C-alpha cells in the first residue's frame, strides 16, 4: 500500500508522519499517535466528540483525511493545557461543574477555544451557537455555557 509523507504542526510541535492516504485524521491521532483525548462518538460528524482545531477552526476529525493535515496546524485537547498549567477553559469547566461523563468534553473545549480566540466577550447566544456541533447528553449545556463565559473573563491560570 502506498504511503504519503506529511508534515504538520500538532499542538505547537512540528511533526512528520508517513501514513496511508486512507487514514482518517481521528485514527491518526488516536491510533498512531496515542492522543486518545480526541473521542469517537459517531464517526459521521453528527456529535462533535472528535472535534480538533484545524488552523484554529473546529472540524470533525472523523470526516477528515490525515493527509489533509499536511502543511497545517492541528490542536487537540492534549495541546490545550497540561496537568501543571490548565487552560482557563479547562479550569472553568472544572470550577463550574461543566463536566459529567466527560466524553464530549475535549471536543467541547476545542469548539469553545476557537470561539474565545476570536471573541473574548461572547454572549450566551454566541456560545450556544459555537458549541451547537458538540452534543452533550449529560449536562443540558447550562453549566458548559457558564464555564465558557467565565473562562472568557479569566486570565491564564
Amino acid at each position, binding site marked *: 500500500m*502506498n504511503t*504519503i509523507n506529511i508534515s504538520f504542526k500538532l499542538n505547537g510541535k512540528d511533526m512528520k508522519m508517513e501514513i496511508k*492516504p*486512507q487514514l*482518517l485524521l481521528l485514527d491518526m491521532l488516536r491510533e498512531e499517535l496515542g492522543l486518545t483525548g480526541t473521542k469517537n462518538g459517531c*464517526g*459521521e*460528524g*453528527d456529535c*462533535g466528540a472528535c*472535534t480538533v482545531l*484545524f488552523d484554529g*477552526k*473546529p*472540524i*470533525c476529525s*472523523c*470526516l*477528515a*483525511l490525515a*493527509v*489533509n493535515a499536511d502543511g497545517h496546524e492541528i490542536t487537540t485537547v492534549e495541546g490545550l493545557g497540561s496537568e501543571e498549567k490548565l487552560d482557563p477553559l479547562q479550569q472553568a469547566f472544572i470550577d463550574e461543574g461543566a463536566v459529567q461523563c466527560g466524553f464530549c468534553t475535549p471536543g467541547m473545549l476545542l*469548539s469553545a477555544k*476557537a470561539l474565545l480566540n476570536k471573541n473574548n466577550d461572547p454572549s450566551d447566544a454566541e456560545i450556544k*451557537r*459555537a458549541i*451547537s*456541533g*458538540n*452534543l452533550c447528553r449529560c449536562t443540558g449545556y447550562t453549566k458548559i455555557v457558564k464555564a465558557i463565559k467565565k473562562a472568557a473573563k479569566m486570565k491564564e491560570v
Partner: protein
Amino acid sequence: MDFVYHNPRNLEQLFNIVNGTGNCTLFAGGTDLLVKMKKKLIEPENIVDLKGIDDLKGIVPEGEFLNIKPLVTHDEIENSEIIKKKAYVIAEAAAQVGSPQIRNMGTVGGNIGNASPAADIVPALLVLDAKVEMQSIQGQEEKELLSVFKGPGQLSIKKGQVISNIKARVLAEQEGAAFMKSGQRKALAISVINGAVWLKVNGNKIEDVRIALGAVAPTPIRLFDVEKWLIGREANEDVFKKAGEMAKEVVKPIDDIRSSAEYRKTVSAAIVYNGLKTALQRIGGLSQ
C-alpha cells in the same frame, strides 16, 4: 476504505487525473463523501482531493456577479464581508448548515455536487440567479444552476467536467432577499424544507421576484408560476399569503423519515409567505 488517493496541485493536474484515470470521485470538504463511504453507500476507486488547488478557492466580485469558487466553505461564506453586504441571503443559508464543524469543512461546490434536494445553500443561490461554470480539458461551459440538478444525488455534468465557479448576482437597491429553513431541531439539522426568496420592488409594485424551495421535490426547484403571478402585483401581506397558498399547490414533495409530504406542502406556504415578507421588510417595504 480502499481507494487510490490523488492530490492535484492545479487545474491542469486535475484534468489530467480526471481524464487519465478510471472512476474518479472528487473530494472537497468530505462531510458528505466520507459519511457515504463509511456507510458503504459508495466505494470510490479514486479519490481526487481538490483541496490543493488554489484556483478553486476564493470569493471574487465581478460586475453584477460574485464569483464564489467551489472550495469556499460555508463558514467562509457566512463570514465574508462582501457576501454579507451584497448577497446576504447566501450567508444566511450558509449559517444554517449543520454545525460549526461542518461549516468549516463543507464547501459550496460540494453542497452543489451532492445534489441533495435539501441542500441549504442552493435555494439561496437560485434566487440570486446563480450560474455554474464547469471546466474540463475541452474548455469551459456555463449553465444555469437550476439546470444542473437531475435528481437526488444526481448532477447533470459531463464526464471530465469539474465545477470551477459559481456566479451569484449581487443584490441591488430595492432588492431584498431571505432564506427560510424548517428543521427538526435548531442545529445539526437537515432541512425538512427550506426556501429562499428574492424580490425587487418599484414603489409598491413587485417588479421581479424569484422563489426557490428545497426538499419538496427530487431537486431544488424554482416556483416560476408563483413568480409570474406575483410580478406586477402590489407587495403586501395579502398578496404574499396568496403566493404561499399557490406554492402549496404546486409542490410535490415525498414522505421520508424527516417528514410527511403533507407537512412539507403545508409548510411551503409559510416558507414562501414569510420569505416574501422578510425580503420586503429588508428593503423597508413592510414594518418589522
